């Protein structure tokens, strides 16, 4: 039920809290209340309407309301309005019920708010404060449901804190179609877990972390690497550099009270410098590099195809999203030579930093610590993959999320809002508009098209904005005219949509040349390391718009025009897909049998 679909349908009248209002037939009480400024609390209901993601088990029973003529209380999220309905959302009976239900949930919940990583962000904590819970009635030594804790490189599961809202299950199964999480056991001991209560690392989990992004409590949280940042920065023998992903600058401000969609690039650089990083570089630089490599790869395959080569693998699939790579390795082992072999920008950066930049500085790779700030949790997993290490030393030492950066800034007592804008350092800090749009779904392929067009047609791009590639629909397609040759593009975000496209490709249904896949809703801006959206998809939309604003404001908007990239090739790499480029900037994929 997506309530915005019903706006053109029949209208009915209901009375809610003595206010008579008109709603479209089919609207739920919860939505009718929301649209009219009446806030009904909930713990399990989630509706990200811009992304068509809905979780509605009707199980927390916090959103219950009184409906005249109905014997028991009604769950407002799952009860449709009927003509003449009289609803009361905050009577004494309702408040008593909500408080009692919340007390019950709290009676089976650990009381470690003081040290819980979700403290301050937790929906359960907030509701408890709002309802003024001061006492939890239960017998001494009342039973609690406890489970084994699970720590993976990207996220942590502490299911003692699970309140069975089922959001993680819905997002993992229905939206991402990964199937790593589902409800197990019955009754009091029921919980959401991988099959046979396996650890995530042994399950089909891709570490996309979307479960963390929607969890209302501290049951699912990111793996915290802030301690490692402090240790690295405190080590006088190390040179510590940081790279920042494009999506971070569009969301970091939210952690400091700014409106969603505020670009804080300059302040972010200033904060990182204040924290003590020796150099503040930009992942966007490496994104331009990725375009050079991947764009050349794309053109290579297209040219072969146009010449009649029957064995060339098309479409080419983008490979910068590590959760997508995991998903691919689990589910499409027969197609491992189809994706681009280009590494992700994070990893390309690490590789250039530990091979080229160390040369510039005259230091050993072991003495350089590369930290990335990412909107993503899967990046924590990606940087410790064996193929991205040399003699055990990783190209990217570790990755912290947007939220972890915010907590470091707060812990260091830096007044973020008062910071003066600062610029990235050179040579690994300059980037184009094409690089920054990597953060949004459709951005990677648009960046690739901007470069591929000029390389292929040898003509100058008249219109740089490819709006036909932009948007938040789950699957989008477009055909771009490369001076007479039609290049077919497919774009998907959220892994369930990726699966649809990939199944079609496997079945030979499509004739795409290139496909961009992002695991997270909206692309990286919706990543699990970003500030929590608490179920408000307007936040994701605002970040999405901000990314394209930053791109529009840049002087250089095509990756191949980045002078520092040009210089890097001249001085060090030679040309795209050179042997050195292959060695440092490309990878291959592995069969994983976890599905």
């Amino acid at each position, binding site marked *: 039920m997506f309530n915005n679909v019903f706006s053109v349908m029949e209208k009915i009248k209901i009375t809610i809290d003595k206010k008579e209002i008109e709603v479209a037939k089919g609207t739920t009480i919860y939505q009718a209340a929301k649209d009219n400024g009446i806030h009904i609390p909930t713990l399990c209901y989630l509706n990200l309407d811009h992304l068509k993601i809905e979780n509605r088990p009707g199980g927390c029973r916090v959103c219950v309301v009184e409906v005249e003529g109905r014997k028991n209380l009604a769950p407002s999220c799952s009860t449709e309005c009927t003509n003449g309905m009289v609803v009361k959302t905050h009577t004494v009976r309702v408040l008593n*019920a909500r408080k009692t239900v919340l007390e019950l949930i709290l009676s089976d919940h650990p009381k470690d708010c003081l040290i819980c990583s979700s403290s301050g962000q937790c929906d359960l904590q907030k509701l408890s404060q709002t309802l003024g819970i001061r006492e939890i009635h239960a017998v001494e030594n009342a039973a609690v449901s406890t489970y084994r804790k699970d720590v993976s490189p990207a996220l942590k599961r502490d299911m003692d804190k699970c309140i069975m809202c089922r959001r993680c299950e819905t997002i993992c199964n229905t939206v991402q179609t990964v199937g790593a999480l589902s409800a197990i056991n019955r009754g009091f001991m029921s919980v959401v877990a991988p099959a046979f209560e396996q650890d995530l690392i042994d399950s089909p989990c891709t570490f996309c972390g979307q479960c963390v992004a929607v969890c209302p409590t501290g049951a699912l949280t990111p793996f915290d690497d802030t301690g490692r940042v402090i240790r690295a920065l405190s080590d006088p023998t190390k040179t510590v550099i940081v790279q920042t992903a494009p999506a971070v600058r569009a969301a970091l401000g939210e952690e400091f009270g700014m409106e969603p969609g505020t670009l804080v690039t300059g302040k972010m650089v200033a904060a990182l410098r204040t924290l003590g990083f020796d150099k503040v570089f930009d992942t966007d630089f490496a994104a331009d590099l990725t375009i050079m490599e991947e764009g050349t790869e794309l053109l290579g395959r297209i040219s072969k195809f146009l010449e009649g080569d029957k064995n060339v693998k098309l479409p080419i699939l983008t490979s910068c999203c590590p959760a997508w790579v995991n998903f691919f390795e689990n589910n499409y082992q027969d197609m491992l030579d189809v994706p681009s072999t280009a590494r992700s920008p994070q990893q390309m950066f690490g590789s250039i930093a530990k091979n080229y930049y160390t040369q510039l500085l005259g230091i050993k790779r072991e003495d350089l610590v590369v930290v990335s700030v990412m909107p993503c949790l899967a990046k924590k997993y990606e940087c410790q993959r064996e193929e991205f290490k040399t003699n055990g030393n990783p190209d990217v030492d570790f990755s912290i999320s947007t939220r972890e950066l915010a907590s470091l800034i707060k812990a260091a007592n830096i007044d973020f809002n008062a910071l003066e804008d600062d610029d990235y350092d050179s040579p690994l800090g300059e980037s184009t508009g094409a690089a920054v749009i990597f953060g949004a779904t459709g951005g990677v392929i648009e960046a690739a098209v901007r470069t591929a067009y000029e390389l292929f047609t040898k003509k100058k791009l008249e219109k740089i904005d490819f709006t036909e590639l932009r948007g938040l629909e789950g699957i989008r397609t477009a055909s771009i005219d490369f001076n007479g040759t039609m290049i077919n593009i497919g774009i998907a975000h959220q892994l369930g949509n990726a699966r649809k496209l990939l199944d079609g490709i496997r079945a030979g249904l499509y004739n795409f040349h290139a496909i961009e896949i992002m695991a997270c809703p909206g692309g990286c801006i919706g990543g699990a390391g970003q500030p929590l959206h608490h179920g408000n998809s307007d936040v994701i939309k605002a970040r999405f718009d901000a990314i394209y604003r930053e791109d529009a404001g840049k002087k250089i908007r095509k990756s191949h025009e980045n002078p520092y990239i040009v210089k890097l090739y001249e001085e060090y790499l030679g040309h795209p897909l050179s042997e050195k480029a292959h060695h440092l900037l490309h990878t291959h994929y592995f069969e994983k049998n976890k599905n």
Partner: protein
Amino acid sequence: MHLLVCGGTGCRASQSERIAGNLKEEIKNLGLENEAQVVITGCFGFCEKGPIVKIVPDNTFYTQVKPEDCKEIISEHVLKGRKVTRLLYEDPSTKEHISDSKHMGFYQKQIRIALRNCGFINPENIDEYIARDGYAALGKALTEMTPQQVIDQIKKSGLRGRGGGGFPTGLKWEIAAGNKADQKYVVCNADEGDPGAFMDRSILEGDPHSIIEAMAICGYCIGATKGIVYIRAEYPLAIQRLKIAARQCREYGLLGADIMGSGFDFDIELRYGAGAFVCGEETALIHSMEGLRGEPTVKPPFPAQSGYMGKPTNVNNVETFANVPAILLKGAEWFSSIGTEKSKGTKVFALAGKINNVGLIEVPMGTTLREVIFEIGGGIKDGKKFKAVQTGGPSGGCLTEKHLDTPIDFDNLIAAGSMMGSGGMIVMDEDDCMVSVAKFYLEFTVDESCGKCAPCRVGNKRLHEMLEKICSGKGTIEDVEYLKNLGAVIKDTALCGLGQTSPNPVLSTIEHFYDEYKAHVTERICPAGQCKALKLYTILADKCTGCTACSRSCPVGAISGEKRQPHVIDADKCIRCGACYDKCKFTAIHVQ
């Protein structure tokens, strides 16, 4: 002459199959195969007095028959026409032997409609079902009536759902009929999960064809070509009988394509439950069939609108279906002439507990509790005093002496603080502790809660813990008040019928037996003497010889004392196991 041997599970457990075998053997030995035939039938209902053997046509009703009695039955009754008096039922008050069951107190007030064939036919023989007007109702519907006319008859009859909900069946069929779809389903809910309930089981084991016929009629009415029986895996005999019945129907063209040449296709399949009470809830049942976790979902939408695989689905209980063929054949007027104003027809009850005549009964709606318990049920066992009757299983409440003259029907029982449920009726006497009864039912619902909604998942657990605290002597009067509020909120907020009714046993016992709760918390005694933790074991100093037999037998060392001196029990250490009581030769241990 036919010798009908009860093949219901209760009698089977008492070797009724061996009895049947022995009877057949004796008939053969005496060369009487042409005169006498043995038939294994469904449940007669008088389980207290089983195994039952009934001789027709003279209607001799033999009770508590043993395999050794078979020789005598054949040689005396069959060969010589002389009844075996010692096997006849003896009326407890008049001490008279009663030969025909229709004169027995147990049977006199019963009208068997849903159970009409149980105890009369061999359920594994379709010809016997047909001989008793089986499939005539289906034939009438398919050849003489339109679907709407059949629905109108069911509506007029006033039949309401027998699974516990009491929803008007005809209306349910009409709603499903009105929803357009390319495929619809008829589902029979045979998950019968109430502990101790066996109404549906008896119908399925004793008369499986009645269900198949009713489902086909329902399919005709609503436009469904597929029927599914969701039956709990714990009913292997019922499953076997249904499979045999369905196979026989297909052979006779009563299931499959173009039934009776009418152009109507219908067939059934079986799906098995896997031990979850919650899957008796219709939406959880449907999701279980869809291969999903057996959890209920919010209604609306109702199954009639969007059910199995999202298609219009009509779900009815076994007993509801069992009434349908009889209504079509004998007419809606006949059915609605039985019962009360708002509850028509009869209801099958499983009568159990501290009652003399334990068994399966079917009485017209409006029969009073007093009639059921004291006339049909034969009164309280061992001459004890009636205390309460629990109706509706774990979803129902306890009714007391002051409710005994309540005419049983859907609305009266709800008004009295209980509910009809699926027909479980447990009678309790003065030795039953009502707090323990509430705790017992909550143990069940805590175990069976699916876990989806917080009030039921956590709330029932907390109710149960609180009752355990009270039964162990550690409760307070505030705890009883807490139970009332928590129970009311769980009822008000739970997602499905399980949670919405699970507090009923607690709430009704608090209401009607408040003094008993008070005794547990303020005086720390259990008036019924059932709660072990509240028993007080003391040693009577004047009787104690100090022989130390008790202190040596105590597993927790709670008894202390010098040899030849009176001993003392430490009440805090005592675990109330009773070992000392058993060991003492001087009756010096007093139990309160």
